[in-house]
């Protein structure tokens, strides 16, 4: 039934797909943390205006499907002559960049919620201890609250990592050849079904396996070794 030689012959296609998926997801995750952490702080500290803006942001991006966000960014914006004539067209004309922007903005919204909860849950005693030692509120934030929140949110954040990896398949709908894109290309070229999809599934599982090991290590190192 399965034609394994077909997969072997197209190994380069899948290798390229793995590279695209990994770079896309890791850059989006990094960008998500850089955007999401300040927003989470703004929300948890109830900073006027900024806190509210962060709330609206996360509502909008968590309230709409990633695929819709990607289509609006990729096909929607391209409809406007003004956009095509502007400097923004340089990045927006590239499908990979559009996917990266959409994933980053989307991940930032989820990260904001994860960190907001974790920031609020930091033990009051630790904060008071910091203040008693003479730290300023800013010092308490960066030396105690943020590190503690990053630590305790590891399990929730690891879920977001895996979620984004799987959600990244939508990139294949705007011509990006990621892992699923490679599978679809193979299927379309040879009129097969299982070969492309199963290979893609196995590759995603392999990446998740490696990720899980990394997360376990991080958790052992930062979450359970309090002594």
């Amino acid at each position, binding site marked *: 039934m399965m034609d394994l030689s077909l997969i072997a012959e197209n190994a380069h296609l899948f290798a390229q797909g793995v590279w695209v998926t990994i770079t896309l997801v890791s850059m989006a995750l990094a960008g998500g943390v850089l955007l999401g952490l300040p927003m989470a702080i703004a929300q948890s500290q109830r900073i006027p205006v900024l806190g509210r803006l962060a709330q609206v942001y996360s509502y909008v991006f968590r309230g709409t499907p990633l695929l819709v966000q990607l289509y609006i960014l990729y*096909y929607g914006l*391209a*409809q406007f002559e003004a956009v*095509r004539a502007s400097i923004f067209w340089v990045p927006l*004309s590239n*499908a990979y960049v559009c996917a990266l922007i959409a994933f980053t903005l989307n991940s930032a919204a989820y990260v904001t919620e994860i960190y907001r909860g974790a920031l609020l849950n930091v033990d009051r005693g630790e904060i008071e201890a910091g203040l008693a030692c003479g730290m300023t509120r800013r010092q308490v934030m960066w030396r105690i609250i943020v590190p503690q929140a990053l630590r305790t949110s590891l399990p929730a954040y690891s879920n977001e990592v895996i979620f984004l990896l799987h959600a990244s398949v939508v990139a294949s*709908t705007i*011509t990006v050849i990621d892992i699923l894109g490679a599978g*679809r*290309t193979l*299927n*379309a*070229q*040879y*009129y097969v*079904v299982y070969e492309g999809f199963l290979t893609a599934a196995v590759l995603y599982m392999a990446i998740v396996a490696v990720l899980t090991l990394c997360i376990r290590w991080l958790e052992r190192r930062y979450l359970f070794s309090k002594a």
Partner: protein
Amino acid sequence: MKALHKAALLGVAIAMGAVTSASADVTKIRWGTEAGYKPFMFKTADGELTGFDYDIGNAICEVLKAECTWTEQAWDGIIPALNARKYDAILASMSITEERKRVVDFTGKYYQVGYRFVGKSAAGLTIEGLEGKTVGVQTGTVTENYLRAERPDITIKAYPTQDEVWLDLAAGRIDAGFANKIVVQDGFISTDKGAGFEMFGPDYTEAKYFGEGTGIAVRKQDGELKEAITKAIAELRASGKYQEINAKYFVFDIYGE
């Protein structure tokens, strides 16, 4: 057990098909199609299927006195869904190629046209000049397979539907498109988006890549349905019904030689 049961039923069905006369007991045809291919198969403003393929399908059912239903399916899964029995036949401007014949059977052709490139008139593109350029095609089509085999010098961008190729060509993300020339004309050049675009290069018809015309695909074991539809197409040609439908969409006979 269940598989055995199914196999036995299938055997009986095949045996029955062999003894009954063709076309006599085709009472229902479930068509599978994809609707991003104007003027062959597209949707009206209120979401109804329409187009040359749609009219031909309904006319075939009229001839066979069969009941027709239509199911939409994304192009990249259109053959697998046929073999998974989601519908009985694909009527979606599918070229009859050797590669596809390995997995499905085809009726005789119901039309035949060439394939052409399209790009911005101002860019003055030529076939040779496409080297290093980006060309958009619908994924899993004869045009994609041709480019992959014959033009390694071109960057290929494959889209789920033909309509998305037109969107990106108009937006300037790709330098050229490559498709059935009627679709290029009616689906793009004569629309608002396609102003300032024109076709270039020759008519591609080479059977090795572009097939022996456009046919209707059926499952390999459905010989009876294949015969019935092939006969119905011939009957449509003979009765003048085909020419009537043809005139609705085209100024020339699209059946080819």
